[in-house]
């Protein structure tokens, strides 16, 4: 345990092209690209499935089946099939991102369609009664109401992607997985364990940031926080009146 602490606190391990800071940056970068692509694909698709109720059966089973595919195998297979057709770093980067996107799509898609589906039917009817068109109902009512579930889908996708981006090192890319695999190769246990602690800490930190973002983005009307604020407002008004 002491050796691990010594490894983590040694300033020389933090700097340079293969230092902790650079590896963390690569790790975040791989994860961010994959999440952005997956969100761009899965959120519109999920909203459409939830809003129209079409292709629901397909969406449910597709997400279930995708979850069962082991990322490590998919990564190696896609490197061998795609990698030979690409040059330089792209030969490993594109297949790796592909695997991370495949991993991130199911939770985001499930969050989006489940989020729209669980919107109170009364709210939807009221919106139509006010004369909103289909797209207005979707964007002004269903989407804001679905935000908690969309965001929890994004969060669980982010966790899985950050965890799995560790595997990028297995195909020669960077990221924090480098410390795990390089340490394993030379039986440097301090480096392996240090790297493991860093990935876990990064995952926890990202989840913390995401949960804070979720609190900011989601309407207080959905989280029951309005009650407290309304009560406070009412109390203020009554004190002002008296």
């Amino acid at each position: 345990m002491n050796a691990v602490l010594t490894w983590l606190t040694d300033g020389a391990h933090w700097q340079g092209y293969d230092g902790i800071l650079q590896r963390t940056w690569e790790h975040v970068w791989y994860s961010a690209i994959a999440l952005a692509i997956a969100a761009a694909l899965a959120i519109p698709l999920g909203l459409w499935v939830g809003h129209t109720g079409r292709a629901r059966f397909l969406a449910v089973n597709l997400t279930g089946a995708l979850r069962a595919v082991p990322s490590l195998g998919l990564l190696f297979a896609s490197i061998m099939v795609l990698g030979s057709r690409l040059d330089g770093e792209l030969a490993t980067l594109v297949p790796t991102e592909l695997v991370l996107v495949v991993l991130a799509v199911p939770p985001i898609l499930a969050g989006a369609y489940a989020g729209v589906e669980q919107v109170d039917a009364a709210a939807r009817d009221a919106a139509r009664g006010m004369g909103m068109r289909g797209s207005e109902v979707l964007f002004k009512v269903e989407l804001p109401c679905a935000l908690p579930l969309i965001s929890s889908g994004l969060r669980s996708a982010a966790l899985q992607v950050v965890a799995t981006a560790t595997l990028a090192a297995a195909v020669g890319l960077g990221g924090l997985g480098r410390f795990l695999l390089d340490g394993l190769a030379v039986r440097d246990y301090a480096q392996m364990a240090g790297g493991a602690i860093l990935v876990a800490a990064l995952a926890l930190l990202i989840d913390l940031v995401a949960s804070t973002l979720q609190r900011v983005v989601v309407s207080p009307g959905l989280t029951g926080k309005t009650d407290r604020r309304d009560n406070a407002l009412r109390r203020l008004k009554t004190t002002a009146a008296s």
Partner: protein
Amino acid sequence: MDWVLGHLDDIGSYTVQHAWLAGVPLVLGLLIAVPLGWLSRQYNWLYTPLVVGTGLLYTIPSLALFILMPLLLGTTILDPLNVVVAMTIYTLALLVRTVADALRSVPDSVTASATAMGLRPLRRLFTVELPLAVPVISAGMRVAAVSNVSIVSVAALIGVPQLGSLFTDGFQRDFLDPIVSGLVACVVLALLFDLVIVAATRLLTPWLRTGAPTGRAA
């Protein structure tokens, strides 16, 4: 296809290993999650620390957890026990919340009737509350089973043999057949686990199959 036929023995023994490494933790995790879930229902203040605390364990990447295990257990890095304990932790991370929420969803009137019939808390748990919680717990088990089968394959990187070994072997030899067979075997194994859980749930909840008419009447 030729490769598969020539290596049926290897694929078979890898599959058995894989099923063992993914299945045993599933059972162990459930056995630990039930008392923890029950505690968090009995003592309300325990709910948040237990559910959030075990949930956080799921954020630790699998490769990292496999590597950290020897540090905690005093085992060698190649010991399959590392994988079993790590997978039990992941199962626990998913199931504690499921069991706690499932027990909480049992209607108060049912618990009260059981108490009024003279059932002590432990007897009430096993004869009334747990059976009613089975459908929810089973949904959680299905998620955990699929995720376990997929995560176990990562253990090939630290040298523990199972279906993931087909991925590393194939990748090192630049040979696609073992990788594809490993992928197919993993998905089939996940499906089998799913079928077993669904079948067990059906056996444990006979009232759900005959309950439709009363449901319609109500």
